[in-house]
């Protein structure tokens, strides 16, 4: 096991730094998913034909955003967004700049997952909402989202794991992160052991996210 202690002694600080970068990118993009993706997915659900706030234009526009962003191969989206990133962040390079395209994807993924989960709520719940004289916001906040919360947490878990995977590509714009670290040392420097070690670290991260998400989701579910 001396190879492991040697590796950690030499690269431990770099690994920690990369983990922090990944953590930052994930945190910000998950925040975007919840703050923007969740409302966007809810709007798509509500404005669908037959929905309780049917609205064709809003529905089409919201769907268009989600579909277009999700159509991009992620690497291409990162490159495509460079001018925009430069305008908003001031630079197109580094962890902060790399987080922006990740946020776009996070919003699109989570919006679609939110819509799907809301669709699984029995239609009778919306009918009860309307029949009891609830306004649309009341139906959403007092009935639909509480019914969906367990599924929403589970979907966020899924989204987080996808984002972890997406974030590995962000090395191209200097995003850093643990995935980029593995690519650089494993693929470019051919330090196999170091690559294996980082892969194990990523797997452990995924297992941890999955476990926390699963447990939270089960605890919230009384069906």
């Amino acid at each position, binding site marked *: 096991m001396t190879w492991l202690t040697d590796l950690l002694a030499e690269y431990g600080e770099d690994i920690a730094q990369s983990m922090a970068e990944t953590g930052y990118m994930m945190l910000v993009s998950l925040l975007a998913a919840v703050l923007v993706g969740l409302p966007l997915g809810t709007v798509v659900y509500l404005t669908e034909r037959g929905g309780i706030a049917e609205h064709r234009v809003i529905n089409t526009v919201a769907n268009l955003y989600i579909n277009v962003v999700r159509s991009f191969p992620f690497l291409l989206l990162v490159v495509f967004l460079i001018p925009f990133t430069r305008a908003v962040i001031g630079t197109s390079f580094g962890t902060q700049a790399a987080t922006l395209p990740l946020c776009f994807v996070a919003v699109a993924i989570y919006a679609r997952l939110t819509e799907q989960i809301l669709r699984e709520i029995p239609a009778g719940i919306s009918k*009860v909402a309307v*029949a*009891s004289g609830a306004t649309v916001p*009341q139906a959403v906040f007092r009935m639909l989202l*509480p019914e969906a919360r*367990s599924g929403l947490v589970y979907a966020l878990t899924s989204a987080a794991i996808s984002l972890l995977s997406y974030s590995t590509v962000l090395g191209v714009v200097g995003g850093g992160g643990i995935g980029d670290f593995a690519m650089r040392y494993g693929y470019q420097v051919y330090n196999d052991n170091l690559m294996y070690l980082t892969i194990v670290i990523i797997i452990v991260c995924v297992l941890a996210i999955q476990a926390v998400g699963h447990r939270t989701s089960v605890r919230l579910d*009384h*069906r």
Partner: protein
Amino acid sequence: MATDLPAIVEFRHVTKRFRPDSDERPALDDVTLGIRPGEIFGVIGESGAGKSTLLELINGLTRPTDGDVRVRDVSVADLDRAGLRRLRRDVGVVFQGVHLLSNSTVRDNVRLPLRLPRRDENRLTAAQQRDAVDEMLSFVGLSHRAAHFPAQLSGGERQRVGLARALVSQPSLLLCDEPTSSLDASTTADVLRVLADARDQLGTTVIVITHDLDVVKAICDRAALLEKGRLRRIFEIDVGGPRSLPSYYEQVERELTA
């Protein structure tokens, strides 16, 4: 006979077509009837006869293609959004399948309608809401279930929670779609007792869709028979003597012995 009492719900030549441009048979076809305050009114008929459509026209969930539906002498079609919301808060509904919130306790499910009015629409205070919910849970005989979740209840109990939710805001009108269709005789009796109590103690007018004629005989004052969207006949139910639901065993004896 109190036929001259002003009707609480009135259908005037109501026709409902779900696809007005096709020539398929309308879901409701020129139906005229009045429901008197304080009665328990049954709606019977085969599936597809238009029973649920009739119910949904009363609280504006669907709109008539022709004719006029009036609740307390106001045409439902004339109401704006806010007016419709106010009407709906005064009309309790229990749909087939009840549809309770599965992640909320029985208490929170029942409390839901009380949280919907805005502060300036004389919403009850939190303490008043709690009292109203407790009172309603004891009214339907489920005080001991307050902290449970719907998945922990039996079908009959869920139905009664649905009734408690529909009645908690003291509506003048209660609409029930097949409240006993999935229940056996003894749990049916529990549910029917709540309906009768709602009328007797709270003064609620009750409109109940059912396919079970024993239910009609047990609690209804009148019943409308629909056939393929048309009103075929209104029956005055007069069963001389005390009304009660036959027990399961009486039902079996009656139906299965010659």
